[in-house]
């Protein structure tokens, strides 16, 4: 009687079919999405201790959005397209006289004494109505963040020869090696200190 030559081979021809089935299942259920958006910090609930801090009127840049999406910037009606420019002019003004401790040596603005002293003091105050549309609000937020980013880019180009936005996104990216990130951290911090984002949002006004 002839002996068998070991175990018979399993037919693997249908493996491809099974793999295809699984593949199609995962293809259908996959959503490759990376959400992106505007990062903001809300003010904490408790007011800070030094509540009596006096902020000079000239250091505040008021932006008011009404229910129809119109803008009132520093008591004047303004088109939303000019907002970024106006915000840059305000932040970059550097109105403190040269020689004073508040003098801003990297500002390239008009140095108008009736506008902000330096970027560290400059505060943008944003107010909106309860009936303002969300899309308008996002556009205004986008323009104000854009104004800060434009100025930070300018300083980053001057100091490090790179854009602040790319530096920051590289710093925040978890895939960047940690040695690079440590180096970037100082740079990003330094630029952020030159133009700190001081964007205050008062509680929304009720309908008058």
């Amino acid at each position, binding site marked *: 009687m002839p002996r068998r030559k070991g175990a018979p081979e399993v037919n693997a021809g249908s493996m491809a079919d099974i793999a295809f089935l699984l593949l199609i299942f*995962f293809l259908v259920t996959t959503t490759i999405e990376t959400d992106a958006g505007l990062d903001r910090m809300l003010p904490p609930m408790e007011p800070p201790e030094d509540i009596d801090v006096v902020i000079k009127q000239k250091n505040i840049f008021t932006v008011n959005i009404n229910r129809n999406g119109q803008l009132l910037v520093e008591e004047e009606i303004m088109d939303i397209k000019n907002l970024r420019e106006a915000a840059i002019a305000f932040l970059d003004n550097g109105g403190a006289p040269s020689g004073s401790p508040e003098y801003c040596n990297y500002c390239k603005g008009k140095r108008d004494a009736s506008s902000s002293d330096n970027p560290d003091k400059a505060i943008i105050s944003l107010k909106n109505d309860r009936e303002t549309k969300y899309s308008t609000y996002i556009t205004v937020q986008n323009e104000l963040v854009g104004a800060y980013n434009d100025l930070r880019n300018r300083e980053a180009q001057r100091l490090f020869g790179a854009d602040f936005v790319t530096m920051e996104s590289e710093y925040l*990216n978890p895939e960047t090696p940690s040695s690079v990130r440590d180096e970037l951290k100082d740079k990003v911090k330094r630029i952020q200190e030159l133009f700190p984002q001081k964007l205050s949002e008062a509680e929304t006004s009720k309908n008058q």
Partner: protein
Amino acid sequence: MSKFAKKKDGELPAVSTASLPDIVFMLLFFFMTVTVMKDSSIMVENTLPNATEIKKLEKKDRVIYIFAGKPTKEYSNVYGTETRIQLNDKFASVEEVGSYILAERAKKPQELQNVLTTALKVDKEANMGLISDIKQELRKVNALKVNYTTFEGDAFNNLQ
């Protein structure tokens, strides 16, 4: 008989498909690793506004989502057409936002609890009143880091 004599004339050999499973498995593993199972279906209209100065939400496990918008067609005859908040799989009132955030925060590992971001996915037609209420609730539970989720695009398109 010569060693290099042709065995047959004219007939093409069949292409070997033996490596097909390998290729398919490779694709399979790729999709398996990038897959994120959808955990909630969106019950509100959710056309996000556009913005240019955006930052990516890199780590998904550190994000809590809040949706807001008008209920979609299937739900509008039950829930009306007013802008509503959606938390997980159900509609919620503004007062529930705080407890939802606290509950979601408690589910996350200890070391992530202080670095959570709240992603607000709000329809562009919504009014700021609701958003302000949500923001107020978030401040109450000290969830201060928010991200207004948007599409990338020219922000002035929002105004039309």
